[in-house]
């Protein structure tokens, strides 16, 4: 099993390298490089050449790539093209909001969704199952901004609570104050990941519950609780961890839309700005950060699945 996990870690590392190459090359295919963007269309050829040399843009791609990667790993994310400010500084200002919203969403959304998903699977076709399933069928297909709009309509416009945008400093706020501050973004994201997670965890558990050994447990006259908690859930851990990871990874997308919708300052708004101003250095750096988080979450899910497999945990 150790060998298998080591192999996964290695694959994760290779994936990260591949990702960095894709992101690097992705921003290189554009017409006009950093020097051009910074100096504008009217810049003279001489000035361009000078700046290119200064930025190292005249060197071959692989050298540029290695320098960029080396700098990235040592924490130097470069300077943004538009403001010429260090990107690490821009990130330091904003990462908290993104992190807080994602973490609180996971903290609140995951347990509730899993509980609902498992409960729905325990009583298929019950009143609970039907209503939870119906709700998730609707929400799973709806875009984040539709859910956000519904929430805004209900809470802000109908009940008069909160505001359509999230603003102000979070300095010195406690947990509950933070939840209150980010209530609408968190609620939106919770609905989005919950609908996915409920469906997928329900399906994962039902899949296990169709196994012959569950039928055997029924025929042994075991109580329902024991069949589900001891026999089914133990075998569903792998798939369920996978479901959680997939949805946490999905937060990467969700968080971008939500930050823009409620227009507060976070990493996601920064990357969107970068794209709009074609500040590709910023896109590269932030893209790498988002992708790294994504890859790490998937890796954890993979390893969890390996560790929950009895055949691998207890070899012959």
């Amino acid at each position: 099993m150790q060998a298998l996990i080591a192999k996964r870690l290695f694959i994760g590392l290779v994936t990260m390298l591949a990702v960095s190459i894709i992101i690097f090359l992705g921003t290189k295919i554009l017409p006009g490089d950093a020097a051009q963007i910074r100096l504008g269309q009217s810049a003279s050829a001489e000035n361009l050449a000078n700046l290119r040399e200064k930025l190292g843009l005249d060197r071959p791609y692989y050298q540029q790539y290695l320098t960029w990667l080396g700098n990235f790993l040592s924490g130097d994310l470069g300077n943004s093209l538009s403001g010429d400010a260090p990107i690490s500084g821009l990130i330091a200002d904003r990462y908290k909001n993104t992190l807080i919203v994602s973490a609180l969403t996971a903290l609140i959304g995951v347990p509730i969704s899993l509980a609902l998903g498992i409960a729905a699977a325990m009583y298929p076709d019950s009143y609970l199952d039907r209503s939870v399933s119906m709700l998730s069928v609707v929400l799973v297909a709806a875009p984040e901004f539709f859910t956000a709009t519904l929430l805004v309509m209900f809470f802000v416009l109908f009940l008069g609570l909160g505001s359509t945008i999230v603003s102000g400093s979070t300095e010195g706020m406690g947990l509950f104050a933070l939840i209150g501050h980010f209530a609408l973004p968190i609620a939106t994201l919770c609905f989005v990941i919950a609908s996915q997670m409920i469906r997928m965890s329900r399906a994962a558990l039902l899949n296990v519950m169709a196994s012959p050994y569950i039928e055997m447990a029924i025929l042994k006259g075991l109580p329902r609780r024991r069949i589900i908690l001891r026999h089914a859930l133990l075998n569903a851990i792998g798939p369920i961890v996978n479901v959680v990871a997939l949805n946490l990874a999905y937060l990467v997308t969700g968080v971008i839309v939500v930050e823009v919708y409620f227009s507060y300052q976070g990493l996601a708004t920064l990357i969107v700005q970068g794209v709009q101003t074609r500040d590709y250095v910023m896109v590269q750096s932030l893209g790498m950060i988002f992708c790294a988080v994504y890859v790490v979450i998937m890796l954890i899910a993979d390893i969890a699945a390996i560790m929950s497999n009895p055949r691998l945990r207890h070899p012959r």
Partner: protein
Amino acid sequence: MTDVVYEAEGLRISATRKDGSELPIVKGVDFRVRRGQVVALIGESGSGKTTISLSALGYCKPGLTISGGQARLLGQDVTQMSTEALRPLRGEKVAYLAQSAAATFNPSLRINEQVTEAPVVHGTKTQAQADQRALELYRALDLPNPENIGSRYPHQVSGGQLQRLMAAMALCGDPDLLVLDEPTTALDVTTQIEVLKAFKKVIKDEGTAAIYVTHDLAVVAQIADYIVVLYNGKIQEKGPVDVIVNNPQHPYTKKLMAAVRPKPTAVEGDRTETVRDESPRVAAEHVTAGYGKQVGGLPLVKVLSDVSVDVGHGKTLGIIGESGSGKSTLARTIAGLLPASSGEVSLNGNLLPPDLRKRSKNDLRQIQFVYQMADTALNPRQRIGDILSRPLQFYMGLSGRERRAKVQDLLEMVKLPPEFATRLPHELSGGQKQRVNLARALAADPEVILCDEVTSALDSVVGADVIALLQDLRDNIGVSNVFISHDLSTVASFADEIAVLYAGRVVEKGPTDCVLQPPFHPYTKLLIDSIPEMDTSWLDQKKQAHSTSTKDLAKAWYNAESCPLCSRYPVVAPDPANKEDSIVHQISDKHFIECLRSRRVF
């Protein structure tokens, strides 16, 4: 009447279709099981036997409902009980043993927890008492290492052991009634007899009543007191085992009895001296093959080592061995599906490239492979006519009316009606699909067909018909046949020659009648002795005979300085691969036995 443990009365069970209509599966069945009695439900798939047996636990598979009648367990009608009311009965009063223990054990829990779970959860035993009981059962069931086997996980023990552990799981709660659903069907014959013996012993010792579901009459004869014969959800005949076995009245029971092959014996003397031309049709010589990367010219996982077989014109070579012995691999190597690592395959004396991609179209045409599972061998999206047309078009370039006529001929040849040409495979029954599978091979007009376990997925009655068809074809069109099976009695019934495969080696080969009479290779002897006979006392005799004679003989032979055959027959050649531990005895011109000393003792 107090000794009646279970009684079904007018029991009806039906399936609910998606459109809400009901499809009867069990159509009014009456029988009873008394204390200490084993009642067998016998019939082919679709007869409703499993469905009936499960009703004793008040259970129906999803999609089925009990639509009428009663199923009384110890006087209580379980058909009318709620799931909650049934819970204390299940695992305590009545216990179930499924066909596949591998699927029935929870892969994530230790064996002992699963075995002792029912009585502990029901509160009839403490964990310590249940553990004690489990240990007794492990011993009674002849399980190796009874003290520790419970602490293992299901995937850590063998299939035969798991099957016996399932019996321990069922018996741990001391139930009044056991329901056994084809518990030995998935096992090899040599394992089946061990498990069967263990079951019979425990059932008799415990005095438990049992319902035993199977399609195998020979197995039933060993273990049952009373037989219920089912067809299409209805009882055709029921009676004490002696009456049914020795004096069946109903035509369906007779048909079942006719499908049971007699124990193979060397009586038909004409098969000892098979006259054949010197050049075989197809031959594999010194073939070594396996899977995985090639390391130094040898595969990583070696399945066959230095195997030689051949089959003459219009002859049938039977290849027999248990699962994992390499018999399918041998056929795949001959067909070129799995290229041999070393050794040669030749057709009519001409050497064939090991890999089928390098063989000519004509070579491919002459060797046709018939798969075990017709379900996966026929493309579900192609009509039968198209399936049969393709080889005709591909190899012979036939088209239009000529091809359609040939398709009709082929269908007639395998005794299927002509209108089947327009059907899709899923519209056919298992036996019909296997005939189409065979017809596709014949469409290529081959010299040799390789039949890989073509009857093992079929019910015995249906399988018997397919065998009859194969015999017919051999006699009429003279195609050579390599027939692979784990069932010696099937092979012996129509093969001219038999090769016995054990652990990737041909341990005995010769004309059928020579192989079936002494001197035996101990493994051949074990196979012959493991075939259940229709004699109801067979297993009881085997109880002493089997374990003492065959197995110990084998052990003695392998441990002896020289084997008993050495003094009687000339030693022809030590195996070049394993000079130390292998000796070949040439019994007669065509018959040899290889002694693999110091190899695994079965």
